[in-house]
């Protein structure tokens, strides 16, 4: 696992962030004790991941996509070219055997994300726990990340947006993608798509810490192995697939 080689560097970064002084004005500082109040694993070497079992995923089921649209208020305008799409169902067919698989694809939350590499402003960034996000305060809407992503996971916001969800600010002119429901993860919950999948009974999606050898996701990856989409690009996604 390439994550482990990164652990020492993360530990160093976590130590540096433990005591942060933010200068507000001359003579005024905001002191933040970061580490004690951090929910479990935020600055330690946690790697959030999702394991998707293509064998359990039903071609007719769209529950994860709908749950995502509901969670983030992704309004559709019947304009497929520009409508937001953070997670989509993909069907692949083996032309020889005719075997067909259906599974969801979203931001893969890569360990080495190309979107972060190409971002000219640093708006595209990876959190210490592996979740890849867009900082809309810095994003200038150049769309390099959309071009760079091999998974076509990023979207550009083309429409004015009103009444955003309080936990998910979105605005016209910026890039956006699946956040792995970071607001739910930080509260100790699982992403909306994973919840919805479990609700349908398919249980094709499993969320957990890939770096914790005792977590269910790690055990299943260790036992059955898992496929990384476009593994040749060595992005090492946090979203893994089984049964492809």
């Amino acid at each position, binding site marked *: 696992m390439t994550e482990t080689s990164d652990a020492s560097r993360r530990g160093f970064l976590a130590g540096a962030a433990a005591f942060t002084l933010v200068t507000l004005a001359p003579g*005024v500082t905001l*002191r*933040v004790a970061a580490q004690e*109040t*951090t929910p479990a694993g935020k600055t330690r070497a946690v790697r959030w991941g999702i394991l998707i079992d293509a064998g359990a995923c039903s071609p007719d089921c769209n529950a994860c996509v709908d749950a995502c649209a509901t969670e983030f208020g992704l309004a559709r305008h019947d304009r497929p070219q520009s409508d937001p799409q953070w997670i989509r169902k993909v069907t692949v067919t083996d032309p020889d055997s005719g075997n067909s698989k259906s599974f969801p694809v979203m931001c893969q939350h890569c360990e080495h994300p190309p979107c972060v590499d190409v971002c000219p402003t640093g708006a595209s960034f990876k959190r210490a726990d592996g979740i890849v996000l867009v900082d809309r305060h810095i994003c200038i809407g150049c769309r390099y990340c959309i071009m760079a992503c091999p998974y076509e996971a990023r979207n550009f916001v083309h429409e004015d947006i009103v009444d955003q969800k309080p936990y998910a600010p979105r605005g016209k002119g910026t890039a956006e993608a699946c956040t792995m429901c970071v607001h739910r993860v930080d*509260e100790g919950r699982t992403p909306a798509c994973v919840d919805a999948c479990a609700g349908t009974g398919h249980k094709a999606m499993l969320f957990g810490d890939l770096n914790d050898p005792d977590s269910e996701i790690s055990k299943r990856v260790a036992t059955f192995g898992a496929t990384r989409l476009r593994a040749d690009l060595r992005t090492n996604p946090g979203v893994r697939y089984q049964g492809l």
Partner: protein
Amino acid sequence: MDEFDLNAPPPLSALTIAFATLFYVAAAILLLGLFVQTVRMVYRVARSGRIDVPETPADASLAGRAVRLASEVFLLRSTFFSDRWAWIFGAAFHFGLFLVLARHLRYFIEPAWIGPLWKVVVLVQPFGFYGGIALPLGAGAWWIRQAWLRDHRLLDSRVDRVVLALLIAIPLVGYVNNYIHTDIVAVKAFMVGLLTFDWKPLPSDPVLLLHLWLVALLMILLPFSRLLLLIPLGRMLHVPGLLGGGPGSWRRKSNVVWAAAVLLLAMLGPPAVIAAAQVVKDGIRPAPGFAGLVAGHSTEDSTVMIRFHPKFLLSFRTMVVHHGEQTTSDNIERCVSCHAVNGADGTPVGYNDPQHFCGSCHFRNAVTIDCFECHNSRIPKQEATLPSTTRFAALRPRASTEGSARP
């Protein structure tokens, strides 16, 4: 909303009274001076039968002459053709000054007074910011060039030089104000209070007080300088020597100069002393220890929130988005939810509504924000009444923060 009542009338301090008086006196002198100078100019034109502005070459029709005159007054036409560097620096100064004055309208005008025209005041704000950079640069460069050319003809009295120095110094002090986040809400209340004869307290911010004191000095001196006069004359700077027979003649009357100096000291001395005493008493703000930014911030010095809320919000942003702190506390959504104001339909009003907590103040002070292009500006109180944290509680002056143990 009750606990955020910023208009509760505190007792007027000596500082407020001194500066209010100073500004009334300065405004009276400026207006009287402008009136006298205008009368003299009209008299001069009537007597000589001609206007001291180049009118040729121009179309002989009235419209042609008007256009020619306007190009002289607004574009400094003859200077453009006679002395290109003087025009470049002069134009930077004059257009910069115009934009700066337009930007400062927000401190003197309530949106309700001018209706839709308020949009112009909002629009001019960023231009005024850059105008304030052009102003001292243009004036300073012009002055240095004048000294370099050893041409003191255009600035022949001490008053002219002091006025020009003030015009350079005032914007520079103004930018310091910008940097230290002066409480402009209180400044506007003070200024509007002066206009409506309903005095409001003036903050004892040393940089602000210096800025205002220099402005008062400028207002008093301007009528005695040729820089006030609005009509340029060929290569001469404005109209020379209206306070005497010719350029600089009045300054040779030393008893007049002494009397003026004593009067000036009497007008400007007491406010300066009172301001200095008040600043020493209050200290360099923000002096009060600020315990509990989010929890109970209204009970502390309210000006801290007024002045520093953008910094707080960006700090939250860094904590929440970059460091992965809890997203459910200390963010702009929590501010918006707690400060939600319900409209007629019982749901919270949006940012563009004049009642909105953020919108009301930002609209009134012509400060444009784009927070709500991404963030929701109308979150009901119930949905997002979030647990308070005291994580940002330790806001103190740096001296007491550094070196102390972690909480």
